[in-house]
């Protein structure tokens, strides 16, 4: 086998029948430490991502979604620090990894797609070279082989390979996001974290890219953590959805289940804040109040100041745990706890 014909596909050890999670996050804690305050942006967050699964992560701005993405990828910068918890990737402890091992691990196994593709691409490098340097950082291949691979990748994400020597500013917004996805695919990672990948794009391009991402996922068999504040988008693409509020996960369920049968009061009200295009006309409810200041989070359940069904005397005092309320469906609310509200 010559080098140009080398296989870029990775053998997937976890794909065959086992249900071992690819990524296991347990009790993750991230704090922003400034002189004025310590803000715990992510508080005891646990979740799993299984092979070839799309996990959606939703919540209002500032609820800690992106912080989780950065923490798992270990690209948090001071003043943000991981202060507790475990992140296991295929049995490897990511938080214990030193810089050198981390450098090798990154992108090869775990890639990240940023919110704004314009800012995620180096403006003075061609997109081809930005794919090539990712490949060459991890594999001892010649520039020519890496370029062949880059051409292939551009084709895969629907960019005319002749654009390989284009600079980011010469591409449209949608093409730039595709280029970023091509870079993410370069080493065929097991997991791609997509942090609001389509937020900056118009609705039509959004749909196209989402559709293509799903195709690519099925073709290459990677997993995705898809982060967005747009629930309607999430329902379409995710297998499971985790809802975050004020640094905590308050509900996790398979998307259809969550959509049809939201349990947590916050999720319910979140669902009501989106118009449905095909359904009957309805008055959008919205959620009164605003997310809490995380330097001084509310006592008890963090949602209680905005909750319309809170149990007086309990929700202000006691923090609810994330409990399984239906098969594969967990929520953190006293109302759903059989011991509290039978």
């Amino acid at each position, binding site marked *: 086998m010559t080098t140009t014909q080398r296989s870029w596909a990775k053998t997937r050890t976890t794909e065959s029948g086992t249900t071992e999670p690819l990524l296991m996050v347990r009790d993750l804690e991230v704090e922003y430490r400034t002189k004025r305050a310590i803000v715990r942006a992510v508080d005891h967050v646990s979740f799993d991502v299984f092979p070839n699964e799309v996990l959606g992560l939703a919540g209002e701005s500032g609820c800690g979604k992106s912080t989780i993405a950065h923490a798992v990828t270990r*690209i948090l910068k001071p003043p943000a620090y991981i202060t507790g918890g475990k992140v296991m990737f295929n049995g490897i402890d990511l938080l214990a990894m030193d810089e050198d091992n981390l*450098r090798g691990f*990154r992108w090869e196994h775990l890639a990240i797609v940023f919110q704004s593709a314009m800012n*995620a*691409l180096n*403006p003075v490098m061609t997109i081809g070279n930005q794919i090539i340097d*990712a490949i060459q*950082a991890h594999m001892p291949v010649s520039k020519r082989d890496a370029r062949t691979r880059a051409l292939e990748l551009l084709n895969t994400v629907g960019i005319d390979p002749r654009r390989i020597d284009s600079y980011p*500013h010469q591409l449209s917004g949608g093409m730039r996001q595709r280029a970023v996805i091509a*870079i993410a695919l370069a080493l065929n990672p097991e997991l791609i974290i997509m942090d609001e990948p389509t937020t900056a794009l118009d609705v039509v391009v959004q749909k196209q890219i989402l559709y293509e991402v799903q195709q690519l996922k099925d073709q290459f068999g990677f997993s995705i953590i898809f982060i967005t504040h747009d629930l309607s988008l999430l329902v379409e693409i995710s297998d499971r959805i985790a809802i975050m509020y004020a640094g905590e996960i308050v509900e996790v369920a398979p998307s259809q289940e969550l959509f049809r049968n939201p349990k947590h009061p916050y999720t319910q009200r979140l669902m009501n804040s989106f118009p449905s295009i095909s359904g009957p006309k309805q008055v959008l409810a919205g959620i009164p109040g605003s997310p809490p200041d995380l330097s001084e989070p509310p006592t008890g359940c963090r949602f209680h100041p905005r909750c319309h069904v809170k149990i007086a005397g309990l929700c202000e005092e006691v923090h609810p745990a994330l409990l399984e309320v239906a098969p594969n469906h967990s929520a953190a609310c006293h109302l759903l706890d059989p011991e509290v509200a039978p």
Partner: protein
Amino acid sequence: MRFLVRRTGFYMVAALIAITLNFFIPRMMSGDPVTAMFARFQGRLEPRTMDALRETFGFVDAPIHEQYFTYLQNLLQGNFGTSITAFPAPVTEVIGNALVWTLRLAGTATIVSFVGGTLLGIFAAWKRGRFSDSVILPFLSFIGAFPYFFVAMLLLYILAFGLKWFPLSHAYDLSIRVDWGSPEFVMSVLQHAALPAFTIVITGMGGWMLGMRNNMIGVLGEDYIVMAQAKGLSDRRVMLTYAARNAILPSVTGFAMSLGFAIGGALLTEIVFSYPGIGFWLLSAVNGRDYPLMQGIFLMITLAVLLANFMADVIYVMLDPRAR
């Protein structure tokens, strides 16, 4: 490419305007150099010689537009007239000799200052709050804040006059024969250039370092830097090809400009160290009312600045694909 063609056109027009101003300004001043020269010779010069001299220096009694075209014609032939202070050497020869010394001293020092300052700035931003950022940067900024001549004279006084580590003036030991093949002469040139070059480097570096550091810090906050790190690239590559490569863009223009002005002679350096470059000759020309030489030097400075700007444009286009 179209951009560069447009810029070239712009610089041609700018050069023509500069030449025109350069022609008219001295002619609008009262008196002429020959009268000044005549006065200096205190009557030992015959009026007939004066007329001849006038003609030599281009101050003929012809209509102004005719003079202007003669001037342009002369310029195109590389004829800048004859110097008065260095009589009878032609201006081009004086400038040519001086330019060599200036380029060697100010040119080299400006480049060293820019490269050194920029590299230090990159490290200061990359290792923010560490030694280069918290010690070297304030120190260089402090030195750079002094008036240049003060630093230069202080160093000259302490290192050359007091400690006698360096020669006091000139570009080489005048007792040695000018011969670029002899190591003795070359050593002498280096010895004489060291201190003036050092003063230019040390006073200029702080500015470059601060500028580069601040650009870098701005760039380091960009998503593409985080993404480059997430891609698993080496720190060196992220620092140079992703961060510094973008952060240097605003510095390039400043560098080209300062290179242009350096060709005009590090005026103060050459005066303090009596270094026979363009700046030194400009001062002598002013003192000696040597209009042809002044005119020639001014014209050369203007053209050098224009050329440097043009170079900045070209480099910018090479470095930033968005400018193409």
